[in-house]
C-alpha cells in the first residue's frame, strides 16, 4: 500500500495554471486507471484529466472555481503497490499538504500513521437512508410533510412526479426545489394554472469557469476600450440573389452558404486598405501590432456560453473554403471539441445573431483586437430608388472600434468599403 501524489500536468503550451471546473471523484471514492478525475479549464478549453493510476482518493485539492498551478498537487491516491511514487514522490506526512489554492474539502494532509493504514471507508449509509431517490411502491401515496405537501400544491405540482430522496422515498423541500429547478414541473404547472404562485426563491450561481472568463474579458474590454460604434445600412438584395443562386446551383453537393463567408470575403478585400482595424493593441506596452494576416474570430454561442473560434488566414481561403471552415469550427466549438489553437489568435471578430440580429447591436470588442463587426437581421423594406419606392432586402452592420487607435473617420470609411463590396457582390471576386 502506498501513496501516489498526482500533480496538475502541463495541459497546453504556455499554460501556468488551470481552473477547477468540477470533480468526478470525492475523497473516499475508488478510481480506475483512466477514469476521469477532474475537469479543469485553461484559457477557453476545458480539459478532462484522467487518472494515471487505480486507487482510492484520500485527498483532493481545490473546489470548482479555484485555480491550481501546473505542477501543484491535485490529488492523493492510495494505491496497491510498492512503486508508489515514481512520479510525484511518496508523501509520508503532512508535508504533502496542498501547496497551492485553498482546499476546503481536503484534510490537512494525511496524518503519518495513516500512510500505512488503509484509507477509511466512506461512511456506510444506513440502508433505509439512501440519498438517491427511492422508487415508490406502486400505488403508494407519496410521503411528504404537511408543509411540503402544501407548497407543492400551491405550485400546482403533483407529488407523484417528484423523486423523494428522504428515508423510504420521503419528499423534502430540497426534492421539491430540485424538481422545480429541473424544469420538469412546467408541464404540470401549466396544466393547472388556477392561480399564479408567488415565487420567492433565489438561485445562486457561482460565476466560475468559462462564465467567469467571459465576465472578466467583457469587463476588461469595456473598462479599457473607449468603444466607438457605427451603424450603416446595406442593401443586400444583390448579395442575397447571388447567395440564393449559388445555393440553388449546387444544391446539396456543396455546403450551404450563409452570409458569413461573404462578409469574411469582404473583410479580406477591405482590410489591406485599412490596416489600422486588423490589429492588436497592447495598451500596456503602448504598441499596436498591425497584422498582414487576417484571422477572423467568429463569436459563437455554445451551451456553456460565448466562445470565439478563429478562421486562420482567411486571406488564403476562397468563398467555399471560408464557408466550410466557419461551419466546421462552429460545430467543433459547440461540441466542446475545439482545441486551444482554434480558440485563440484572432485579429478581427465578427458577431452575428442570425435571425435574431435585431436592428442595431453594440458589440463589445474582443480585446486586444481593435474592431468588431456585428451583423444585424435582413429585412425587406420599402426604399426609394430613382424616385420610386421599391422593396429591397436591407441589413444593418453594427460595428465597434477602439477609438484610441482607430479614428472615427477611418472606421466610417472602412464600413463604407464593406458596404460597397457587399452591395456589389461581384466586386468581392474582382481582384
Amino acid at each position, binding site marked *: 500500500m502506498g501513496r501516489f501524489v498526482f500533480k496538475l500536468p502541463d495541459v497546453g503550451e504556455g499554460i501556468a495554471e488551470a481552473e477547477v471546473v468540477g470533480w468526478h471523484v470525492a475523497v473516499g471514492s475508488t478510481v480506475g486507471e483512466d477514469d476521469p478525475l477532474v475537469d479543469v479549464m485553461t484559457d477557453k478549453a476545458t480539459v478532462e484529466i484522467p487518472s494515471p493510476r487505480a486507487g482510492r482518493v484520500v485527498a483532493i485539492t481545490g473546489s470548482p472555481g479555484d485555480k491550481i498551478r501546473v505542477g501543484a498537487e491535485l490529488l492523493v491516491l492510495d494505491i496497491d503497490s510498492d512503486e508508489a511514487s515514481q512520479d510525484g514522490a511518496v508523501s509520508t506526512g503532512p508535508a504533502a499538504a496542498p501547496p497551492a489554492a485553498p482546499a476546503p474539502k481536503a484534510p490537512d494532509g494525511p496524518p503519518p500513521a495513516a500512510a500505512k493504514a488503509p484509507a477509511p471507508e466512506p461512511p456506510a449509509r444506513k440502508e433505509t437512508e439512501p440519498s438517491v431517490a427511492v422508487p415508490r*411502491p*406502486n400505488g403508494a401515496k407519496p410521503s*411528504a*410533510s404537511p408543509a411540503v405537501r402544501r407548497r407543492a*400544491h400551491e405550485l400546482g405540482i403533483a407529488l407523484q412526479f417528484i423523486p423523494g430522496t428522504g*428515508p423510504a422515498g420521503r419528499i423534502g423541500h430540497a426534492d421539491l426545489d430540485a424538481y422545480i429547478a429541473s424544469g420538469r414541473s412546467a408541464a404540470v404547472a401549466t396544466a393547472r394554472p388556477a392561480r399564479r404562485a408567488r415565487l420567492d426563491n433565489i438561485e445562486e450561481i457561482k460565476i466560475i469557469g468559462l462564465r467567469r472568463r467571459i465576465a472578466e474579458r467583457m469587463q476588461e474590454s469595456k473598462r479599457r476600450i473607449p468603444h466607438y460604434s457605427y451603424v450603416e445600412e446595406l442593401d443586400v438584395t444583390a448579395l442575397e440573389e447571388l447567395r440564393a443562386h449559388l445555393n440553388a446551383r449546387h444544391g446539396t453537393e456543396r455546403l450551404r452558404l450563409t452570409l458569413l463567408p461573404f462578409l469574411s470575403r469582404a473583410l479580406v478585400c477591405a482590410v489591406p486598405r485599412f490596416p489600422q482595424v486588423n490589429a492588436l493593441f497592447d495598451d500596456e506596452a503602448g504598441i499596436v501590432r498591425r497584422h498582414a494576416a487576417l484571422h477572423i474570430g467568429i463569436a459563437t454561442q455554445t451551451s456553456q456560453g460565448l466562445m470565439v473560434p478563429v478562421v486562420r488566414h482567411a486571406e488564403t481561403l476562397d468563398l467555399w473554403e471560408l464557408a466550410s471552415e466557419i461551419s466546421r469550427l462552429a460545430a467543433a466549438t459547440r461540441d466542446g471539441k475545439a482545441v486551444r489553437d482554434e480558440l485563440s489568435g484572432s485579429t478581427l471578430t465578427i458577431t452575428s445573431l442570425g435571425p435574431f440580429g435585431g436592428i442595431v447591436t453594440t458589440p463589445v470588442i474582443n480585446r486586444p483586437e481593435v474592431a468588431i463587426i456585428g451583423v444585424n437581421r435582413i429585412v425587406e423594406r420599402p426604399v426609394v430608388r430613382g424616385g420610386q419606392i421599391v422593396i429591397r432586402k436591407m441589413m444593418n452592420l453594427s460595428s465597434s472600434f477602439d477609438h484610441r487607435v482607430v479614428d472615427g473617420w477611418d472606421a466610417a470609411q472602412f464600413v463604407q468599403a464593406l458596404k460597397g463590396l457587399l452591395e456589389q457582390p461581384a466586386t468581392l471576386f474582382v481582384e
Partner: protein
Amino acid sequence: MIRTKVLVVGGGPGGYVAAIRAGQLGLETVLVEADRLGGTCLVRGCIPSKALIHAAGKFDDMRGCVGDGTIGIALREAPTIDLNRTVLWKEGIVDRLTGGVGVLLRKAKVRVIEGWATFCDAKTCTVRTREGVEVIRAEHVILANGSTPASLPGLAFGGPVISSTEALMLARVPDRLVVVGAGYIGLELGTAFRKLGSEVTVVEARERILPNWDEPLTNPVRRWLERAGVMLHLGAAVEMVELSEGAAAARVRTRDGVTVSLAADQVLVTVGRRPLTNGWGMEAMAIDMAGPFVRIDDRCRTSMRDVWAIGDLVGEPMLAHKASAQGEMVAELIGGARRRFDPMAIPAVCFTDPEIVSVGLGPEDAGSAGTDLIVSQFPFAANGRALSMAAGDDGGFVRVVARADDHRVLGIQAVGTHVSELVGEFTLAIEMGALLEDVAGTIHAHPTLTEAFHEASMRGLGRAIHI
C-alpha cells in the same frame, strides 16, 4: 340588508375557525349563530363531557379510598356529590371558552349575528334576531351548520328519553341509567355516570362495544365496564320505553330473543349524530347531497359556486378538529390561496376508562396498504410512568403499524390512561412520514407514557429494550 364578502353559518369549531381565519385575511366576514358560540363541541359535546368525566373520575377515585383505602389513602366516609354544583362548574368552563371565542372573533373583526339563518337562495339568507329580521347577502357562504343527536324510531327524545345534550345537564345523578348505543359517546357518558354512582346498563345492537375500534383496543374498556358492574346487552335492541306511574322501563329484546324490561330513571340514546340539513332553507340553495351529508370536493366546495360546507355537515369523521381544519382551509381558499384538504390521518379519541386513541391504519387495514405490515405493541404494564400513576394494570398498550418493506409508519393506536395526550405525537409522526427508525431514534423523556411509543417502534425493528 347586510352585504358581506363571507357569510359563515354556525359558530362551532368549524364555523368560528373559518370566520376568524377569514377575518385575519382581511375578508369582510359575518357569522350567524342561533345558540351560543362554540357549537356542539364547546356547549354540549367535547368540553362539557370531558368536564363531567373528570369530575366523575375524581369522585370514583375518592370512593375507592373509603374503608381500607387505596395506595395508602383512606377516607372515613363516602364522598358525596351535588351534581347541580358539578354542572355549574362545568358551565363556568363553557362560559369561559365561549367568551374566548367571542373575543377572538371580535379581534378578527368578524361581525357576529345572533339568530337563525334561513336561506332563500344560495347567497342570501334572512336571520331572525332579537331586534328583527336581517337579510344577509354574501359573495361566499360557508355552511357549518353541524349535527344533532340521532334518535331511534319509537324512542323519541322527551321525558326520560334523553340525548347527550340533556345528559350533560342533569340536576341529579340518576339511580338507574340505560344507555342505548355503545359508541364512544354512550360509553363515555355511561362510564361517567357509573363512576358517579348510577347503575348503568348499555344496550348495543351490534355484537361488540365501540364498533369503530378494533377488538384488542376495546378489550381493556370492556374489562373495565365488566369490573365496574356495567351491564352490557350486546346484539340487543331497545324496542320501546314504557312509562307507568312516573317510572320508566326500557323493553329490550336480547340477543337470544328474550324480552327484558329494564327499569330506568333515564334512557340515554347515543346512536350517532345526524347532519343538520333541515330547517334552514338548504333546499333553496341547489346543492347536491351525498347520502345524508352535503356533497363536497377536496376543497370543501359544494355543487353551488362559492358555497362551501365543512364539519359534521359534510360527513364522517364528525370531529371538531376536522371541522376546524376544513374551516381554516376554506377561509384561505376564499382569500386566494391554493389549498386542498389532504391530511394523511385524522386522529380519533375515546375518553372511556381507559382511553383509546387511533390515527391512521390499523392492523386489519393491511389490505388497503397493499403491502405486508409490521404490527408491534408495547404494554403500559412495562412502563414506569403508567405504573407510578396506578395505570399499569388496565391492559393498556401502544401499537404501531408500519410497512414491512420501508418501515414507514402508517398507523398508531393506543389504549390506556391519559393516552389521549399522546395522539399529537402519533399524528405528527404519520404526517411527517416517519419511519420506525425515526421514532426509535428520537429520545423520549423518562418517565413518561410516550416511552411506550418509542419501545413499540423499537420492538417493530426487533430491538425493544424493556420487553
